[in-house]
């Protein structure tokens, strides 16, 4: 996780001007999630969390953990088909929230005649194509540039685990073990020799698939434990946890 020096802010706190990165004059300052600009020159936090600043990119955002997902464009999410209409699937991203729309034609090589048949409750891996305020978000399972699925689409077999949004973000970092502090998946694969695939959705869903049911159960328990222990759960402790889980779960 980020260096221990990053300050903790509460909702409504004004951000101290000394914290704003100034070294990079070429790029404009970009505000990420959790920050709000109140004209003329106040920066306010809207959530409680760690204030992270990146002087190189001239960005700042707040790293926080929550369970409620709010869609934003280009996020990869794992949804669940709720029902289908003439040319749309309605997809649940998180319960008790408006559903997202997934057009039948937003799949790889889908045409009016050859569109995918998905059952109710089927899990799909999709990208958020459009997300505006006051509108249902729109999803796609195909890249607009290449016309290929690029790994998106219905997820068959396996199961879906619910994790916190913070853990989902940490898992989706380019190097989750080094930057995110989540080593359990690597450890399970490398040291225990378990074979499984995962797909992480930014809406706090992790799909785990494997030939063996036991493997999926072990991975799910490891993820739940890491989620519960939070960011201070070090790699050595994770190694111990992995060993314990593999030993405990009978074949």
């Amino acid at each position, binding site marked *: 996780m980020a260096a221990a020096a990053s300050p903790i802010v509460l909702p409504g706190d004004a951000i101290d001007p000394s914290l704003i990165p100034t070294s990079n004059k070429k790029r404009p300052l970009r505000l990420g999630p959790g920050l709000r600009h109140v004209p003329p020159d106040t920066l306010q936090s809207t959530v409680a969390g760690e204030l992270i600043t990146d002087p190189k990119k001239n960005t700042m955002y707040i790293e926080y953990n929550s369970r409620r997902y709010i869609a934003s464009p280009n996020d990869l999410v794992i949804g669940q088909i709720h029902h289908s209409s003439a040319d749309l699937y309605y997809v649940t991203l998180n319960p008790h929230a408006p559903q997202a729309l997934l057009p039948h034609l937003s799949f790889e090589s889908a045409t009016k005649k050859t569109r995918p048949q998905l059952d109710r*409750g089927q899990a799909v891996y999709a990208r958020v194509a459009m997300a505006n305020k006051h509108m249902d978000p729109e999803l796609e399972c195909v890249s607009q540039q290449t016309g290929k699925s690029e790994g998106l689409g219905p997820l*068959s*077999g396996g199961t*879906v685990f619910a994790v916190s949004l913070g853990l989902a973000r940490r898992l989706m970092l380019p190097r989750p073990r080094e930057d995110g502090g989540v080593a359990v998946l690597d450890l399970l694969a490398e040291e225990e020799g378990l074979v499984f695939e995962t797909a992480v959705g930014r809406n706090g869903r992790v799909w785990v698939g494997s030939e063996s*049911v*036991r493997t*999926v159960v072990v991975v799910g328990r490891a993820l739940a434990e890491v989620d519960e222990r939070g960011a201070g759960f070090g790699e050595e402790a994770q190694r111990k946890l992995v060993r314990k*889980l593999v030993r405990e779960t009978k074949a």
Partner: protein
Amino acid sequence: MPREAEPSLNEKQFVLQALKDNLRQDGRDLDAYRPLDLTFGDEYGHADVKLGKTRVLAKASAEVTVPYTDRPLDGIFTIAAELSPMTSPSFEVGRPTEIEVLLSRLLEKTVRRSGALDTESLCLVAGQKCWSVRVDVHVLSHDGNLIDAACFAVVAALRHFRKPDTSMEAGVLTVYTPAEREPVPLGWLHSPFCVTFSFFGDEGEISVLDATWLEEQVRVGSCTISLNRHGEICQIAKLGGTPVEAVALIQCTQLALTAVRSFTEYLDQKLTEDAKRRDKGGLLAELSAENDR
């Protein structure tokens, strides 16, 4: 009314597949409970029960009222169980769901109708004055097996509860405050507990103890058995669902008995611990006439 969120097809199929291999999502055995945790509050009759992520709070209270005219020698005992939107967004106030009706009905049958509480001891003046004991059950978090957790909470709250001491002298009823006289426990006859089995598979051949919410959404039937540690069964509720073999049901009662014995042991241990915590200094402190300065 918002509907309860359904698990995805993948999750449903996986739960079943795992159960067929004798595996559960949290690594428990099929006949194992999640870790049970009971804490008593500062007041008498306040029990907070955690069963995994399910959390139920029960609070017992008593007041003096007029008994029912058809039962002049009995006190009044009620259990009020309500599911609020805090538990899950699909629960609404004033619109009882099926879960809520079943919960209060089963608690009623288990604790009240089995005569766990001696209602005759609640009578103060025949036909005129009696104690009305009420237990309020609040479900704070719902992760399956509400019935067992709620029943344990109710029994724990009632056994922990102390009602104010009273005396009758020359037709005058006096209710003493805790400062005047130490409150007295309720007349308790036996401690019944609910044990719920969930059935899975096409024929309901897999039986599972203490199902989580995900498992409850996938199960094909359930059966709640209430009994006390002597093996006296108060009620068996098998409400709909797939028919289950009679032999399997008998095996369930055997399992239920061991579960209930461990419940009883745990509750007794917690009650003794709590009594010790309250009894600071023991009898000597009580007999001392010294004041706190």
